[in-house]
């Protein structure tokens, strides 16, 4: 279906969209459009973030919105992440629907207290009387030797915190639909965007629509191995699947879309068919979402597993600056291919 399709390069995206007569826009435009429509349709929605009114507009995702909606609804901020998250929470419990935008996920540890001790617990602590409709957008993906403090994907840190949603869109379609859903949801949502796919193009309807949390998508069907891929790894997974196909290995690529809630049924059903599980994430290995998925599989569908589970991740090290180290740091479709081949070969 057009809305579940992953376009691994611009040429194939354009071909497909032209052939089907569908509108295509980029991931970042999809995010911008979602916000534009949310701002137009709901007076309680407002955006806040450091430098979001700047001409670049957070890598294009807020471009021009301040001109249209004014600086009260597209609000530049002081550099004060924890306080401002608290302020966003306060506005949310009073009925506003803030979208707090961080240029990099590395800055969320600054706001950890307000996210973990406040936003995540507020609805529960108040006995279900006051909810926190707060969306926290944050962007991951290496820059240019950005090194240890400006390259992190920290979604794993939030995994163990009850009360949060964690959303990891991979396609323009999902980015738009999930962001609208995130605002409507009424709960704190950690919305994780990947900058490497900001320019990727795909089908995105013009009207407002939502993509539900907790529903994964099979991006490619296959019988030999279940490959769960997170965020930008969906693209690497699709590339790997294509290569492996030519080698007679039939990979099923699952995009969980949200990792909290996690569509475990979809993953389990796939494992029941393939008997093998590989998880590819855009973060360090230890304590990550890969471990959680693997553990659930071995808890619930152990008898269907035919082989060890494998993870593909960044190494458990901070990100180095030097280009030679940086490029060794990030896994890609080749790593997925060798991992799966090893698995199939029983190594």
């Amino acid at each position, binding site marked *: 279906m057009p809305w579940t399709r992953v376009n691994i390069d611009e040429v194939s995206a354009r071909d497909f969209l032209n052939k089907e007569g569908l509108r295509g826009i980029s991931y970042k435009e999809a995010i911008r459009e979602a916000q534009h429509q949310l701002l137009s349709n709901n007076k309680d929605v*407002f955006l806040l973030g450091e430098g979001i009114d700047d001409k670049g507009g957070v890598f294009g995702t807020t471009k021009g919105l301040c001109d249209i909606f004014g600086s*009260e609804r597209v609000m530049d*901020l*002081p550099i*004060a992440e*924890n*306080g*401002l*998250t*608290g*302020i*966003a*929470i*306060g*506005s*949310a*419990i*009073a*009925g*506003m629907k803030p979208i707090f935008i961080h240029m990099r996920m590395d800055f969320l540890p600054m706001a950890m*207290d*307000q996210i973990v*001790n*406040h936003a995540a617990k*507020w*609805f*529960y*602590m*108040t*006995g*279900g*009387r*006051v*909810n926190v*409709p707060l969306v926290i957008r944050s962007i991951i993906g290496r820059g240019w030797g950005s090194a240890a403090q400006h390259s992190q994907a920290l979604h794993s840190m939030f995994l163990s915190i*009850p*009360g949060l*949603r964690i959303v990891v869109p991979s396609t323009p379609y999902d980015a738009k639909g999930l962001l609208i859903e995130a605002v*409507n*949801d*009424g*709960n704190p949502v950690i919305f994780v965007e990947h900058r490497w796919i900001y320019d990727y193009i795909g089908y995105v309807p013009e009207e407002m629509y939502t993509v539900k949390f907790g529903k994964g998508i099979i991006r490619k069907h296959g019988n030999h191995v279940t490959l769960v891929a997170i965020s930008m790894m969906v693209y690497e997974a699709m590339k790997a699947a294509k290569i492996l196909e030519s080698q007679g290995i039939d990979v099923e690529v699952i995009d969980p879309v949200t990792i909290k809630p996690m569509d475990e049924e979809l993953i389990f059903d796939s494992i029941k068919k393939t008997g093998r599980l590989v998880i590819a994430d855009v973060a360090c290995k230890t304590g990550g979402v890969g471990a959680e998925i693997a553990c659930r599989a071995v808890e619930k569908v152990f008898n269907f597993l035919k082989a060890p589970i494998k993870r593909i991740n960044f190494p458990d090290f901070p990100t180095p600056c030097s280009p030679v180290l940086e490029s060794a740091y990030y896994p890609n479709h080749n790593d997925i291919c060798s991992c799966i081949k090893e698995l199939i070969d029983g190594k």
Partner: protein
Amino acid sequence: MEDLTLLKIELYKKMLLIRRFEEKIRQVYSAQDMKTPVHLCIGQEAIAAGVCINLRKTDYMVTNHRGHGHCLAKGSSPKSLLSEYYGRITGCAHGKGGSMHPVDPENGILGTSAIVGGGIPIAVGTALASKLRKDGNITVVFFGDGASEEGTFHESLNFASLKKLPILFVCENNLYATNSNIKSRQPNIDIAKKAQGYGLNGVVIDGNNVMDVYNAAKSAIEMLRDGQSPSLIEYKTYRWFGHVGPDYDHEKGLRGEEELKVWLRQCPLKSFVDQLLKDNILTLQQIDEMDNEMDETLNDAISYAKSQPYPDISELYKDLFYEGAI
């Protein structure tokens, strides 16, 4: 009766309610069936009363771990608070929150953080919402001297001043954070002075004189309703009992008894009631009547709370996520 007289009686009643409420808790606490950490505010009643009497029902009030008095002063019902402390389903947070997390949306209390400094930005956020929606409400946030040391304090003041938000910061400086004296935590400078560095009005007021408390809050709040700059009022005060629990600190060697004695002499109720008597606003008999009435109300509230059912275990697994999404 003239307005000022009525106001004074009202202030006294509020203080009395808080004092008796806390004393009730002291009485029942040793039974060990109120299973929540209680941070009593005896000694600080004038601040809650004198500030909150200026608030409308729809105004927002943000309190902290030491919040019994603030909630009562803002209008919360003793029954729903005590049921909460007793962990009952009819408590204001259905037993999930306990003493540190009161909530009362109908009275502008949208929930409470017990993280020191955690509530300050949240209050700035409700004030921001009021400004964005032009709903005419103001926000008052109570916090301690300890909380003024957290980064959130600075971040909140900067933002509130920048955006001229309708918020009154109320710092209850009781000289201690747990058992740590302010001298080992801050240089010897008024907390109100910091507010001036952000362009807020910052004033220091005797927190044990309820009329002073009232007047300072009144003028700050009038300014807010006028759309003028936000203020910070630092009220100097003292907590009589332990940081948490019903006991005196000097009995455990945690603070000196001499210090306590000095402050006992500045009891916010005692000095005020003396004045009311002297001014013939109340008679001794009226005061006794009020006392008895209050006692009855609170005994009722305690009995009510203890008669309420505990939540069903299934409640443990509810209220993680709001499900009423559009």
